């Protein structure tokens, strides 16, 4: 099984590599379209600011590649947000894979949200074996509201999309690589999607 971890200079990729290693899987770090295209699974990470991350993605031409991928793709945190229609952070146009905008949490609650929150209304094989109300680690200032692509719900001030899916594209707002045994199980479920 070949797993490509998209390396475009935005994100703490080392943690994801280590989490996969704990599952006895080695991922290939790559920004080369052919390598990414030929992988069985693709992980699209990201932390930091949306517009600069999107600029880096465009620099390597990966913004046009990702929407054409046919294998399961998992966006994590900012990766998930960039897969949406747009982000209000830096007024960034997204890849349009998930049919929602990404907006900022209101000033009435502490921003960023940092810590362990529950996920519920789990609607995907990505969460197979995960109990409703399990805890995952999350850190973000912007979020995707609930929409037709929502496959997991968390609540911070109001309910929002903890995870999204459309066809072969998956996205999680939280960090499975930092979410202890629950996160490890979610990553393992993703690995099981390899054809």
């Amino acid at each position: 099984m070949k797993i490509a971890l998209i390396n475009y200079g935005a994100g703490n990729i080392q943690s994801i590599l280590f989490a996969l290693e704990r599952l006895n899987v080695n991922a290939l770090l790559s920004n080369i379209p052919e390598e990414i295209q030929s992988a069985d699974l693709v992980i699209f990470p990201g932390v930091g600011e949306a517009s600069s991350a999107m600029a880096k993605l465009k620099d390597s031409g990966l913004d046009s590649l990702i929407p054409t991928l046919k294998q399961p793709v998992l966006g994590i945190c900012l990766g998930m947000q960039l897969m949406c229609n747009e982000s209000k952070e830096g007024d960034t146009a997204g890849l349009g894979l998930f049919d929602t905008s990404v907006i900022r949490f209101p000033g009435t609650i502490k921003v960023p949200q940092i810590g362990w929150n529950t996920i519920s209304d789990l609607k995907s094989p990505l969460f197979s074996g995960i109990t409703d109300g399990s805890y995952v680690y999350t850190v973000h200032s912007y979020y995707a509201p609930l929409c037709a692509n929502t496959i997991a719900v968390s609540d911070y001030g109001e309910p929002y999309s903890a995870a999204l899916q459309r066809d072969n594209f998956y996205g999680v707002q939280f960090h499975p690589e930092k979410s202890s045994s629950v996160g490890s199980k979610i990553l393992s479920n993703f690995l099981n999607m390899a054809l």
Partner: protein
Amino acid sequence: MLTKRIIPCLDILDGRTVKGVNFVGLRDAGDPVELGRYYAENGADELVFLDISATEQKRKTLAALVRHIAAEVDIPFTVGGGISSIADVDMLLQNGADKVSINSAAVRRPELISELVSKFGSQCIVVAIDAKKHEKGWKVHLVGGKVPTEIEFFGWAEEVAERGAGEILFTSMDHDGTKNGFANNALAQLSKRVNIPIIASGGAGTNSHFRDTFKKGKADAALAASVFHFKEIQITDLKQYLKEEGIAIRI
């Protein structure tokens, strides 16, 4: 629902855990990786590693240690201690640290906070503030709290938040080491002044101290060292207690 966090803090000297840690069943309680893994498996929500070494080898040793921790520990961890440049932060994040904590360097040159935030994002920049109550109010202290400054604590905290820090780690020098509870009045006031998460530090002695810092102090997370290291408080017991007290906590 977002839960309150319990964070053990481990002091590191030349790659080893210090502060007379007393653990039964660990092969080597002086090994930060093994101790970190123990805490991760026993209820800790995050870990903080504070490097207190001051040798020339420091950076290299710390980078290797961070990499080793990241490989073994599956919860988030913050690294602090003498971090003063973008290069320091870059090296720690590249090796798998989730967040870094800066303290004196930010006081000396506040622009460092803005620079780090724009390069790495708010989510990984924690600003630690040591403060002590003087006659004229709370003042910021430097060098592990030893050196007082004239900087007013709440004003500094506001600047830290405005510059984009993701969290504030507030240690009260009046409470640190007393085991008489956290600085809840100052913490509650801090929560009114800034809108970013606050980690309370200094004063943990009993389970009820944690309850009070979450309820009265409005803290988002609580950090402690010796009560955990000496097994005076077991995190799993503490969390059960907090849950029974009606506090949102991850069990």
